[in-house]
């Protein structure tokens, strides 16, 4: 049977080409996602390792947790004398004080904005680091700096140029050298700014403090032993990690965002595979029904149903494995493409050679083979049921009618799905919505052969205007219910996901616009750097507050905390000034009480956790670990949304528990009588030497947020477009196969006078009709699911449901045009059919 399967696959290779391609494309996406994320992780590891190479141990202040949501927490500064104390500890060979932290770089008035961080660090060479001077010399003194050669090259910076470096404090420094790490000219997606220790301390406003002490063990001293000795000697306040551990921890933090990317990419790849599965099932179904007489002959010659079944599956396996192999190879190329796309949307992914692990290959092969096998299962079972007598039958085999049991199951699933969606949305149960979506999907798959032809019949009415070709196009779409259903379903799935995402995106934008409503501030200042916790020097707020044009300012800061192991976000505000720039509505307690410590909760969170004013909440904060925090007030949800989190502390409390010293936003109310434009100009002038400070009015702030959402959506939609491409291949494939089947009919039409042009328009009309059916079904399902999801996610008040009509119309238009394009090839092939081969009787 295996030999037969190979022979069949080879004999029918032209019919199976597109199926193979679908498997390969789906697998390429899976492999590409894995390769990209593996590569990024490995490169980050390597970078951090190289950067820390040479250092045996690192001493830092202890912290409750090292990183959250991909952001390393800032630790307490260390006292200056610690370096000496460490150096004096037996077993330590050399010790070096290091001051480093995030900062910004400005060249000729233009900010340098890498995708990743700008790191301000303390210059050292081997043995402490792998940084090497490429040209020039080491920085020495308060006005000299060394930059990484890559950044310098990208921004046309030469030795002798002056740049502005800002962290907490801003300074103009002269470039005296350019550096690289190992073989690279810099760290990817980052800018490296190296100064001497004193300058770093000044820029980071550390006074005489340092951020860590790097240690190199004395010769013949075991690092592990030294580590415990040092930890013992320094006490609980300090954490001693091995240099490689520290590098790994930094890498882990950076890699966390990659793991989110991996989940998103793999989910999208799965959608692509699912769409491919429809195509595979369809191809096998068609090819096997075209071969049913041959199968019957096999049966008549003594093959058992089981043997037929096995041979079909073997054929599927062959295609699955070879397709997956091709896809895996293509996945490496796909990884490059994905990296480019992701980087363009602002994700910081390192460049470098790709890593292909054996796990990637295994996962990709198994995924490809499994999807193909599962998709071929149904057609194989039908093939096994072909009766031997059908070999003797002259007439075409009757088209299978959808079976009763399947219909009943389908309707039940559909009804359950809709009911579940409605109920779950009503009960605000998002998990229930997901369950409903799955039921609905299964119901639609089961009912496809019944619903798709009806839909095609209805939406195909206008085709009759094309005359006979249009009429026939509609007829043949309706005539093959299962085929039409599977083809349309694949495309509908992709389109449903796209419309789902675009409605969700539209609504997220509406929500973020709505959040701003509570703000009464005329202007706000934000970091252009997109740092998760914000990145404005506190100096910005201080300068702005002194301007005569400004009436009031209030800053907010963001932080992460651990909520019983789960990372959560909080916002710190100034209770005294916040009411001057925002309408804060308290439903219980008093915002002013925050000054004495404690937290204010958003109303929905208070209700969810059953907390009232006076209750305690356990929060793990980075500096001092778990704290019992008293609830001093409850804030209306809209007010909390304007502050971006439901847990609110005062800036004073924040300062006790966090080392981060950057503002996320500064809200500014202008003085009476100052016009917005004048105020804005004054602000911009005042903060001009802070490269990342961006002065926005409310509309721009909303637009900026919307742009971020759009970028993420753009990436997801683009990747979903990939699933749509596979679905379009499905249309091409199905049509091409059905043309083989309809050779005689086409020949007859041509003989009695159908022109080639008419024939082509008939086939194209079929393709467009399938696309339109998919568009109608897909967009309807996508919109329905998006609505159910948004309602399900709502609290008391319904989230806004925004349908981006223009965007959806564009999707519809593109899908229909793409359907037309999908029909081009089969149409050409049909038009080329020789009239005579079609007529010739067998």
């Amino acid at each position, binding site marked *: 049977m295996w030999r037969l399967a190979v022979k069949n696959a080879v004999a029918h290779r032209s019919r199976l080409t597109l199926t193979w391609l679908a498997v390969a494309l789906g697998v390429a996406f899976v492999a590409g996602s894995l390769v990209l994320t593996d590569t990024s992780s490995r490169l980050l590891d390597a970078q951090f390792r190289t950067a820390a190479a040479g250092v045996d141990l690192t001493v830092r202040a202890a912290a409750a947790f090292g990183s959250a949501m991909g952001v390393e927490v800032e630790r307490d500064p260390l006292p200056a004398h610690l370096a000496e104390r460490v150096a004096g500890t037996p077993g330590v060979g050399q010790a070096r004080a290091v001051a480093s932290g995030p900062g910004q770089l400005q060249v000729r008035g233009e900010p340098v904005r890498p995708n990743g961080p700008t790191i301000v660090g303390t210059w050292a060479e081997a043995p402490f680091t792998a940084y090497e001077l490429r040209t020039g010399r080491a920085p020495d003194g308060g006005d000299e700096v060394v930059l990484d050669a890559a950044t310098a090259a990208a921004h046309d910076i030469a030795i002798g140029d002056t740049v502005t470096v800002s962290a907490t404090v801003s300074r103009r420094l002269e470039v005296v050298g350019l550096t690289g790490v190992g073989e690279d000219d810099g760290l990817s997606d980052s800018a490296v700014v190296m100064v001497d220790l004193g300058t770093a301390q000044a820029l980071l406003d550390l006074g005489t403090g340092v951020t860590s002490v790097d240690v190199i063990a004395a010769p013949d001293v075991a690092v592990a032993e030294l580590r415990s000795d040092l930890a013992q000697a320094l006490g609980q306040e300090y954490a001693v990690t091995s240099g490689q551990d520290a590098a790994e921890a930094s890498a882990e933090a950076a890699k966390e965002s990659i793991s989110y990317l991996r989940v998103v990419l793999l989910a999208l790849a799965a959608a692509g595979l699912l769409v491919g599965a429809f195509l595979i099932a369809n191809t096998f179904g068609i090819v096997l029904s075209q071969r049913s007489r041959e199968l019957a002959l096999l049966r008549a010659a003594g093959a058992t149903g089981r043997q037929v079944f096995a041979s079909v599956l073997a054929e599927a396996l062959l295609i699955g494995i070879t397709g997956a192999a091709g896809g895996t190879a293509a996945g490496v190329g796909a990884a490059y493409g994905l990296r480019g796309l992701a980087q363009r949307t602002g994700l910081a992914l390192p460049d470098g050679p790709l890593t292909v692990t054996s796990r990637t290959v295994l996962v990709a092969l198994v995924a490809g083979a499994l999807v193909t096998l599962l998709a071929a299962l149904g057609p194989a079972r039908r093939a096994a049921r072909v009766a031997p007598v059908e070999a003797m039958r002259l007439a075409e085999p009757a088209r299978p009618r959808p079976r009763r049991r399947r219909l009943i199951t389908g309707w039940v699933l559909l009804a359950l799905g809709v009911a579940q969606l409605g109920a779950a949305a009503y009960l605000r149960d998002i998990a229930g919505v997901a369950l409903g979506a799955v039921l609905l999907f299964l119901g639609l798959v089961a009912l496809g052969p019944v619903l798709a032809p009806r839909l095609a019949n209805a939406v195909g009415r206008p085709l009759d205007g094309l005359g006979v070709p249009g009429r026939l196009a509609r007829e043949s779409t309706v*005539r093959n219910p299962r085929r039409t259903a599977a083809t349309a379903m694949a495309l509908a799935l992709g389109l449903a996901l796209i419309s789902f995402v675009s409605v969700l995106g539209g609504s997220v934008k509406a929500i973020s616009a709505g959040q701003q409503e509570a703000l009464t501030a005329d202007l706000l200042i934000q970091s252009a750097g997109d740092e998760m916790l914000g990145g404005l020097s506190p100096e910005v707020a201080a300068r702005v507050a002194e301007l005569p044009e400004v009436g009031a300012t209030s800053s907010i800061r963001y932080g992460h905390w651990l909520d019983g192991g789960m990372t959560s976000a909080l916002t710190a505000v100034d209770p005294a000034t916040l009411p001057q720039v925002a309408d804060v509505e308290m439903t219980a307690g008093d915002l002013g009480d925050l000054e004495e410590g404690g937290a204010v909760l958003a109303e929905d969170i208070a209700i969810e956790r059953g907390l009232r004013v006076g209750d305690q909440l356990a929060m793990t904060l980075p500096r001092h670990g778990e704290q019992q925090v008293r609830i001093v007030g409850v804030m209306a949800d809209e007010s909390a949304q304007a502050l971006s989190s439901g847990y609110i502390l005062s800036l004073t409390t924040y300062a006790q528990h966090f080392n981060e010293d950057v503002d996320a936003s500064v809200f500014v109310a202008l003085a009476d009588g100052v016009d917005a434009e004048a105020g804005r100009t004054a602000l911009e002038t005042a903060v001009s030497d802070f490269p990342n400070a961006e002065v926005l009015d409310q509309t721009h702030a909303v637009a900026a947020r919307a742009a971020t959402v759009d970028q993420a959506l753009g990436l997801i939609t683009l990747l979903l477009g990939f699933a749509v491409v596979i679905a379009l291949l499905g249309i091409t494939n199905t049509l091409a196969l059905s043309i083989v089947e309809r050779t005689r009919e086409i020949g007859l039409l041509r003989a*009695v006078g159908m022109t080639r042009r008419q024939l082509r328009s008939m086939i194209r009309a079929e393709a467009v009709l399938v696309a339109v059916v998919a568009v109608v079904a897909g967009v309807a399902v996508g919109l329905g699911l998006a609505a159910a999801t948004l309602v399900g996610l709502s609290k008391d008040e319904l989230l806004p449901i925004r349908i981006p009509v223009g965007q959806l119309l564009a999707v519809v238009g593109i899908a229909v045009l793409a359907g037309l394009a999908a029909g081009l090839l089969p149409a050409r092939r049909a038009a080329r059919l020789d009239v005579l081969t079609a007529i010739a009787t067998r």
Partner: protein
Amino acid sequence: MTTVAPPASTSLAVAAQARDVVKTYGQGEAAVRALDGADVAIDSGRLTAIMGPSGSGKSTLVHALAGLDTIDSGRVLIGDTELTALSERERTLLRRERLGFVFQAFNLIPSLTAAENIALPLTLAGKRPDRAWLAELVEMLGLGNRLDHRPAELSGGQQQRVAVGRALIARPDLVFADEPTGNLDSRHGAALLGFLRDATRTLGHTIVMVTHDPVAASYADRVVFLADGRIVDELSAPTPETVLARMARLDAPASAIGA
């Protein structure tokens, strides 16, 4: 029904002609000369039968005459139109407007009703059938109550009659029928042949019919015999007996060689 005696062929206009047509399939060793200098004129307003052993080139000749296939050399004319000079599209339009076809099997589009199948050549040209003519055809073909049925719901005889209706609906200059009764039992076959004969005698159509059945050939006004891609004989006012006799004569040398 009045039976008009066929006038002498010389006085008739020529509806179509093949002049020294050669058609080869395949190449080199495997090449088959399906038509090898075939020369024939089809008289207007008459039913011409083409007979010959299997593989003698009957279908190839009809396809060449109908512009369904290209030829290697020679000329084919429909009326005054030189087919070899036409483009693919022009040939398609010519088929649609001036020619009709009845094939042995698979004559109808499964998704169209009988009425739609009949009207197909006209609707493809964006025209509507002439109602009176349609009614007359349907009446003659005895398809009155079957018009809304799809091919799958019709018997083989009915299907072939629908095909004849389709071949005649556009009032073509010439109708080609390649073994139209090949798949029918003798009763249905006879009815169809009777209808074809009436179409020429009472309606004035020109029909070319390929057959290898002497009884079918006897319905024709004239029988042309084909062997090895060449016209070898012809017979006017045939009867089954005279046709059989000619056939036997044609077969004799072949069987002598074979023996």
